[in-house]
């Protein structure tokens, strides 16, 4: 039997996270991170935010965005350390840490989004 390598699946998560974060993050960061704090646009009311997050579709999208983006980070950061800084002897440790953080972060994201009333 051929041994299944995890690499293609990890690359797929990296790629999916790359596309989703590229599509959704710039506008979200522009609004919440830049436009609201600078006062260019008034921030939405708490009631409006509750209504938005109350929609299950919003939560599904935000969960997918969080999880896939974390795996995108894990994969890319691992290879940046590997190729960029040439930390090759710690390959297993770095892989365990990066994907571990992605798994834990996804669970936390799921918990927070699921707990919204």
């Amino acid at each position, binding site marked *: 039997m051929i041994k299944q390598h995890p690499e293609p699946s990890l690359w797929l998560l990296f790629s999916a996270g790359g596309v989703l974060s*590229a599509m959704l993050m710039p506008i979200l*960061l522009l609004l919440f991170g830049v436009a609201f704090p600078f006062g260019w646009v008034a921030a939405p009311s708490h009631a409006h935010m509750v209504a938005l997050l109350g929609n299950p579709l919003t939560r599904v999208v935000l969960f997918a965005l969080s999880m896939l983006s974390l795996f995108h*980070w894990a994969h890319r950061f691992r290879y*940046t350390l590997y190729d960029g800084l040439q930390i090759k002897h710690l390959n297993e440790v770095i892989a365990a840490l990066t994907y571990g953080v992605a798994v834990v972060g996804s669970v936390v994201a799921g918990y927070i989004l699921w707990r*919204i009333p």
Partner: protein
Amino acid sequence: MSDSHVYTPYHPRWLRRRVSTYWWLEKWSYFRFILREGSCLFVAWFVLYLLLLVNAVRQGPDSYTRILEWSAEPWVLGLNVVSFLFVVFHAVTFFDAAPQALVVHIGRTRVPGRLVMAAHYAAWALASVLIAWLIVGA
């Protein structure tokens, strides 16, 4: 002869020049590569920020007001401005590479790469307008 040496018969000794750890500082294109790869750190930061924001909304109006104030603190604002630039850089480089990563066929003809790229940019624009409308417009 001692047994402590492990060596492979007939295996050539490769001539490998040692590459500096800071090789990516040598050329602008190398540096751009590291910046592109480094954008993932800001993607990860935004996931953390997003979860803090959602959690604050969940906890009530006071927490929500507090996180809006916290977002206006100079270091958070600075970090988010830099993150925004990196996330846009990530988006542009990712969509520009899309035709290489995604080969689409309709029937037996290959969809031109420029069309694949244009579709990604169109989806990005559409998603951005929709999100902005949902948050501030509706």
